[in-house]
């Protein structure tokens, strides 16, 4: 059975359930303590995850569940993301009439779904973990029931998410029909994809379903609307966590389970990557809403990360892992600031950021740093991630000219993105505010969470080696046949 391997996921789920139970006995004015407890618990689990060593892959539930270096990397990433998202939620939930504990518990459940996904080695576990995430997000997105944009975003996410899930489950069914097994091939046996049309079509549908999670073209339409409407902590978790889970699954499916099929689909994947980069960056240019802008930019970043997949090598996978960690730090910081810097009910307009450096120098510096990192300026972590991803593509371009085009498109996208990222920085520091507004008080928890993100952005940019080593180690665990 080896169920002990699933301890972290179990612990997170138990924490979520415990939170809901404790909520019954907690007076209304002490609900904040529950959030603190959740943060502490999750941080403890994160610390505990370091008890697991990244040795040879270990299996549980008859091979459905795998614990290898890559799964561990993703789990730690998601736990860290969860801690920061909880801190944001604690701050943001002051706006809710009630439901702090529910909100925190739902975040925990989403995190647990992501963690299951990181270990999925079986089509059924893949689907169940994706659904655990998605269904939780339906509620998380529309949690601000009194605010119309939140409800609208919830409905959009629900309908499009259901559509994507339908593709996913239909694809899984076709693959099962074609191969007669639900397990990923792994080290034993040949990878999928050489076989029947049934399997190939099924895998394409799975790609569409997972593409919805990472927000790639043509499954990207939901991202701007949902990011804009959802509560900021939810959007942060969507951007940093859900996307990471999507990539974890995509890496498993494309590189481990169906490498031959991925090779066949390489031109399409390259097209998707280029289209995502262009679409996200071009659409982001005229945006005035910070969260919507981040939604479009998340599409572009999905495109960048797909560059790591199309090279179909371990180095590309390592670059994705590195990039995901850096992206998580930057985007979490940005959403944290979005949660703190705007008044309740105020739309997150970029011009309203004018004068932020007077209202709170810390928040201003944090948002500026995260934007600069997202734009990929050295010495921040975003630069090094982009460098690694592009390096893989440029090396591949020596063999095939089409990779040269892709690298060109990616570079053009990166240059374009400077325009809107620095538009935000300019709004913070160089525009005159319409009216003088009071300073912003940043609570200790939110400040510490933001600080952790900033340390990540700067430290992993200046000293990339430790994170890079971890990413290489994790990617080394991929069983590429």
């Amino acid at each position, binding site marked *: 059975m080896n169920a002990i391997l699933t301890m972290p996921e179990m612990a997170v789920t138990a924490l979520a359930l415990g939170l809901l139970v404790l909520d019954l006995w907690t007076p209304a004015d002490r609900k904040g303590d529950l959030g603190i407890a959740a943060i502490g618990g999750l941080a403890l689990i994160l610390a505990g995850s370091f008890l697991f060593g990244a040795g040879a892959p270990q299996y549980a539930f008859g091979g459905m569940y795998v614990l290898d270096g890559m799964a561990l990397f993703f789990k730690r990433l998601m736990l860290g993301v969860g801690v920061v998202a909880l801190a944001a939620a604690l701050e943001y939930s002051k706006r809710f009439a009630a439901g702090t504990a529910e909100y925190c518990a739902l975040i925990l459940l989403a995190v647990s779904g992501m963690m299951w996904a990181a270990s999925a080695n079986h089509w059924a576990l893949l689907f169940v973990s994706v659904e655990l995430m998605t269904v939780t997000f339906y509620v998380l997105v529309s949690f601000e029931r009194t605010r119309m944009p939140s409800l609208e975003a919830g409905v959009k996410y629900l309908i499009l998410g259901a559509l994507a899930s339908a593709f996913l489950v239909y694809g899984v069914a076709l693959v099962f029909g074609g191969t007669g097994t639900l397990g990923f091939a792994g080290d034993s046996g040949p990878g999928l994809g050489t076989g029947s049309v049934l399997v190939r079509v099924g895998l394409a549908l799975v790609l*569409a379903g997972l593409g919805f999670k990472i927000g790639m*073209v*043509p499954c990207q339409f939901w991202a701007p609307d949902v990011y804009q409407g959802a509560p900021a902590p939810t959007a942060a978790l969507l951007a940093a966590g859900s996307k990471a889970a999507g990539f974890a699954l995509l890496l498993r499916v494309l590189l481990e389970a169906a490498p031959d099929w991925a090779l066949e689909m390489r031109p399409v994947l390259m097209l998707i990557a280029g289209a995502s980069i262009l679409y996200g960056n071009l659409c982001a240019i005229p945006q005035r809403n910070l969260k919507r802008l981040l939604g479009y930019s998340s599409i572009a970043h999905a495109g960048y990360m797909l560059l790591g997949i199309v090279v179909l090598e371990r180095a590309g996978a390592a670059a994705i892992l590195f990039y995901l960690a850096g992206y998580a730090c930057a985007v979490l910081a940005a959403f944290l600031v979005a949660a703190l810097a705007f008044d309740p009910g105020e739309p997150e307009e970029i011009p309203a950021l004018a004068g932020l450096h007077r209202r709170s120098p810390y928040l201003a510096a944090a948002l500026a740093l995260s934007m600069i990192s997202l734009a990929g300026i050295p010495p921040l972590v975003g630069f090094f991630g982009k460098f690694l991803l592009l390096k893989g593509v440029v090396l591949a371009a020596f063999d095939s000219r089409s990779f040269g085009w892709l690298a060109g498109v990616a570079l053009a996208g990166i240059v374009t993105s400077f325009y809107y990222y620095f538009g935000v920085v300019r709004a913070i520091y160089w525009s005159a505010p319409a009216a003088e507004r009071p300073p912003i008080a940043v609570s200790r928890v939110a400040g510490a969470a933001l600080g952790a993100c900033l340390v990540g952005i700067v430290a992993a940019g200046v000293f990339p080696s430790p994170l890079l080593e971890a990413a290489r180690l994790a990617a080394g665990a991929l069983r590429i046949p």
Partner: protein
Amino acid sequence: MQTLFPWLILLLPLAAAALISLFTRPHRDLSARLSIGAIVAGFWLTLLLFALPGAAAQAYETRIPWLAAGGLQIDFGLRIDRLSLLMALVVTAVGGAIHIYSYEYMRGERRFSTYFACLSLFTFAMLGVVFAPNFVQMFFFWELVGVSSYLLIGFWFERPAAADAGLKAFLVNRVGDLGFLLGILLVWSRLGSVHFGELERRLAENPAALGAMATVAGLLIFCGALGKSAQFPLHIWLPDAMEGPTPVSALIHAATMVAAGVYMLARVFFLLAATPHWPAALHFLEGLDALEIIRIIGLFTALMAGLIALQQDDIKRVLAYSTLSQLGYMVMAIGLGQPGPAMFHLATHAGFKALLFLGAGAIILALHHEQDIWRMGGLRRAMPLTFWTFLIATLALCAVPPLGGFYSKESILAHAWHQDKLVFALAWCGSVLTALYMFRLVLVVFGGSPRRPRDAQPHEPSHIATWPMLFLAGLTVLAGGADVEGFLAGGAQGTASLASRLAGPLAHAPFVMLAGLAATGLGFAMAWGLYRGAYRDPLPARWSTLASALRQRLLLDAWYARWIGGSFEALACLASGVDRWIIAGAAVRGVHGSVELTGRLLRLAQTGKVSTYAFALGCGVAALLYWLIR
């Protein structure tokens, strides 16, 4: 302990700068205390490192791997050896005194906390240069010194002169740094390493490793020092840097920025001393080695600056040109192949020059920001403490025994005597000039009768400012007893008794010593004759052409402004035209317009309707499937 202390010494000022600018800016007092505390702690830690048994005896390094790209491995580390320890001690001791003095001097300043943040950042940058174990790290901190000096020199940026001076310092330094960077790249491409120890080892194994580029590499690296240590022809920024607050002038001129150039030359001396060899294109220079050129530039700077200093009326500018002149001596010592005496002179000069600037600052404060020496006069009675400390520093600068400056300068002169009699003769003339302009300053400022409005009653600054001056005066007096050269050479300490060391110059080179004393005496006599009780400068009346040339700084600044500034103006016009019409007009507007248009068009797809989204998603998946099974 041996690895922890250096890290603390380096990082404490950075922490102070970060804390001040992030958190304690509204609390003036706390900010100043943080900044002062950081450098004073650094000073004690450096002293402890000296005291630790064996710490100073052996060079060692502590490092964190930072970057490995191909064959290039760059660490972020600290190199602790006698040279860096000595320099760190100078920086923290003199810098610390200046920090404390600043507390009094900048008291009424609106951006008091910001000032201390900049000061700490500057200290951090300088210590980074001192402890750098490789060229890359040194260059990084080198540039950081440039940036923070820009912030400090232009601290009163509301005044156009200060803002311009900051910019000038920054730009002139860029010119030198370009050469430095090229030199680093050249050395790296030839020797395959940027690490000082490794470079030295490889060069020792194979002295011809640099090949035909040996001399060029040495000179390019010297370019860095040319900018930072303000040697001719890049010296023009230093006098203008006087526009900064006086403690900043003291810091930049004494212990830190300008010293960085000489320190760097001492650090990479093995590269400068490599076998001279020129590439074929520069064959006509064969026979001239890098050290010879360095020697000539240093000597020329020393003499030129000494001459210009004779006719400056601003108290800080006299001191600025005196710094230039002394830096010339240090560079000349490097050129003579003697980094030890150069570092010795650097150390003693740091003490007494800081003291001179602090004294000047006290006078400027007392006279409500009057800097013209011809409006001072008679300050000996009003400010006795300032007078005596200023006099001690002057005597040290003029190499009067037994002060520190005497031993360091005699050492340089003696080496010059042994190697090249002409260099010695010219350097001796420089000594005469030194005594002349310094005693001119002392006689005019402190002697005679007051030449200022009646109502001004100058008085000594408060204790916070006088303690650092007394501390530095003490250092200046005692520095003669320090065997810096022997320490740097790595000999065991205390081999020669104190007495024999103090009498050393007389025993080793009696002629040089007597000649040096004669130079000082001659300069003093000339100053006494010309300036005792003078109400205005007699020189312009007697030698008007020479005096006006010196007053206009030998027309160098005007020449630079006309030719370099003019040609840049023309280039800038051309670039601006190209930028406005071709780049901004056609390229940027065109690209920007089309990109923006595409963005707006694409946004039309984002209708906000779920049905559109679902339809598009379906179409996408259909296209995917079509591609697969076509």
